[in-house]
């Protein structure tokens, strides 16, 4: 029941987002024809052709409905600069960004969660201080600066990783994406470390952890089904939001490493006033954020019986 409610809310949010996105075109400077013409010569004939092609003489709601209908069928129109269908353009770029985002998320979790737990376990010790300091540093270096440092150190000076491009074979892709993923993951891992440390410290003071130890439960059980599972809830929230941010916000890193991903596409599309591409990207980004939030909610339901119970009775 509550799941259905959340789904409805997600659809409604997407609807609002799509109206705003479509409004972008109508509100563009010089009017929609000018934008849609792009670099082509602006003569009365071409303008009339555009108006006819895009049904610009219809009222806004009708135009919007038509656009939305097309968008739902996966047709976002044609990119103005490349003259290719927008979906093709995006599908071209998506694998790089998705790979980068996924890779960065894996790094974030694999490094952040154990480091946060370790810091909490050795609270106040050398290890804790080291981890806390490192996470502070990682948080304060902007990702583009870190990208350049990594490029110089590992790609130029040491030559371990390629400098440029995304690679073709899967293995090659992995090698190419390692440095960008590290650059992207550093600040996020720092956030996860802090979340995890705080959550674990909070847990360590809980009676149920002491009571579990007092019953002589094996160490792995105390850590997995008591500490980790209870700490998972806050970390899950942050992790999901980071994933959503990765998919749309890896602009700096993509630029620094010369990756042709969605971030780079967004920048060039905005620069060239390629409105159909911008529309599709904005809608795509919004859909990702909403979807990830929905997944987090569902994960909560799966992990926490209290939420499940509330969901069942509400």
């Amino acid at each position, binding site marked *: 029941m509550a799941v259905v409610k959340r789904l409805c809310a997600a659809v409604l949010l997407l609807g609002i987002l799509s109206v705003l996105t479509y409004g972008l075109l109508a509100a563009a400077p010089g009017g929609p024809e000018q934008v849609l013409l792009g670099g082509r010569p602006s003569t009365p004939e071409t303008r009339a052709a555009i108006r006819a092609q895009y049904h610009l003489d219809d009222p806004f709601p009708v135009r919007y409905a038509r656009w939305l209908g097309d968008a739902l069928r996966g047709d976002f129109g044609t990119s103005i600069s490349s003259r290719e269908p927008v979906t093709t353009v995006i599908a071209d770029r998506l694998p790089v960004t998705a790979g980068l985002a996924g890779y960065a998320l894996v790094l974030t979790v694999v490094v952040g969660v154990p480091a946060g737990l370790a810091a909490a376990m050795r*609270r106040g010790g050398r290890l804790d201080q080291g981890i806390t300091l490192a996470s502070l540093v990682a948080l304060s270096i902007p990702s583009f600066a870190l990208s350049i440092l990594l490029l110089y150190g590992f790609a130029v000076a040491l030559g371990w990783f390629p400098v440029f491009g995304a690679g073709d074979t899967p293995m090659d892709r992995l090698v190419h994406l390692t440095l960008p993923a590290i650059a992207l993951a550093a600040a996020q891992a720092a956030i996860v470390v802090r979340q995890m440390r705080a959550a674990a410290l909070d847990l360590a003071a*809980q*009676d*149920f952890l*002491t*009571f*579990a*130890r*007092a*019953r*002589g*439960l*094996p*160490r792995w*059980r105390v850590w997995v*089904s*008591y500490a980790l*599972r*209870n700490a998972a809830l806050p970390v899950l929230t942050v992790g999901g939001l980071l994933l959503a941010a990765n998919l749309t916000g890896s602009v700096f890193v993509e630029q620094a490493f010369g990756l042709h991903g969605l971030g780079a596409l967004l920048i060039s599309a905005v620069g060239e006033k390629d409105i159909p591409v911008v529309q599709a990207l904005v809608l795509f980004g919004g859909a990702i954020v909403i979807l990830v939030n929905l997944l987090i909610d569902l994960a909560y339901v799966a*992990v*926490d*019986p*209290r939420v499940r*119970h509330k969901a069942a009775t509400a």
Partner: protein
Amino acid sequence: MRISELRISGSGLIVDGVDLEVSSGETVGLVGESGSGKSLTARAATGLLPKGLRATGSVTLDGRELLGARERVWRSVRGTRVSLLMQDPFAMLNPLRTAGAHVAESLRGRRDRAEVLRRLAEVGIDDPDVAGRHPFQLSGGMRQRVALAAALAADPGLLIADEPTTALDATTQHEILMLIRGLQRARGMGVLLITHDLRVAFELCDRVAVMYAGRIVEQGPPAEMAKAPAHPYTAGLLAAVPTVERRLPRLIGIRGSVPSAAQVSATCAFAARCDQATSECAHARPPLRELRPERLTACLHEVRPRTRVEEGGQERRQVTGDEVLRVTGLRRTYGSHVALGGVSLHVNRGESVGVVGGSGSGKTTLARCVLGLVRPDSGTIELADPVRPRHQLVQCVFQDPSTSLNPALTVGATLTEAAAQGPAKDRLTPAELLELVGLPVAYARRRPAGLSGGERQRVAIARALSVRPALLICDEPVASLDVSVQAHVLELLREVGTSMLFITHDLAVVRQMADRLVVLARGEVVESGDTAEVLDAPAHAYTRRLVASVPAAP
């Protein structure tokens, strides 16, 4: 288990040389007020001291030294040989796991469902559905039963129960205590019961040790100790315990407050608060000497029998006919849960009306409605004066003064701020208010953190009185205080003499405080009348159950 010369220190000394022995088949009580180090002793005996604390001395189990043992050794002992049951049933269970899973994971050997159900039945849970429920779906008493089943799942020879019933209401408390006693007898195991409540320890234990400022000051069988305490501290505690049987004309606490173990390591810990103290007491630390076999005391002197306050004429307060509060047909529901199902009561000027009931009876919702913090669904609340705003007519003293006072404000600032909410004409100054509650005027400059629990509650009372309310609501005002302090605060509330709605689960306290009594059960008034009549001859079954669950006064 034998504990000897146990010392625990963190930033200062906390436990200073505790010797204690528990054999199988016996129940030993460790009694002490908060800060006496009793809980840390229990933690040290299970190797679960919080980080930053160190223990020295010796803890042996069946002749095997455990103190300083590696975590692996402890793990092999915990659960199977010694188990710890803790205070708060709401925090002790993993919120994400079912009751059955808690028991199953603690079992050694067979782990099937039948065994889990058998273990739950052993602690009095006959409904097999409970095994599949999560802790948040269970009541406090049920949770404590589940925790007990989990603690006993690996069949330990010794159960250490740290305040196992403190967070529960009176009837449940009684049930759990009887359950522990039954299990102890059936299994022949040893029990170390840690409690702040002398009555609980006396009711359940074969031997009681009284702890004060990190050391044991007296030990012996409960019957003898109750009759003739051999340490002035025990005597003071016994005098301070309120009784449900009669109203005492005066409630006597112990003056001063508990010192830290480090402050008194070279003297008698109690000397500064003792009426019998002589110069010897301050020179050296009195050893725990044997009076008779099984009877130990750390006092150099013979304890004078306690001066019983004789029952004088029951001085009743001046109660006039006009009402300061009339509540009629008050209803409040939360979803399908009925918190108040049509409650009616009244309080006359100068009268103190007690509201008693277990948890979930609607006591607190009633208080919140009268205070205007909760809007009732239906029913009326009439106060003495329809013109003055409600916050000037009714004020409240909450249960826990450590959270009800703003820690960032000094006592003076708190009181000034509170008084400013009252009428502008002759406002009470902080100095007057502090004097009213028996605190030094200099306390105005302190912050709550610099005060003891009892002192904080006095400040909270002063704050409530600052607007000269017509009615004072006391919501469990002494439930979080130690017995010796509790008596002082109750006596103060008696002296204040404002009309009072006194909410509590403790019948002994209400006997001391209330002229009339209203018994609430599941949001309904089941009985009301003169306090003495209701408690001496309860008419309703629920009241009878409440009265029966009060531990006998020592």
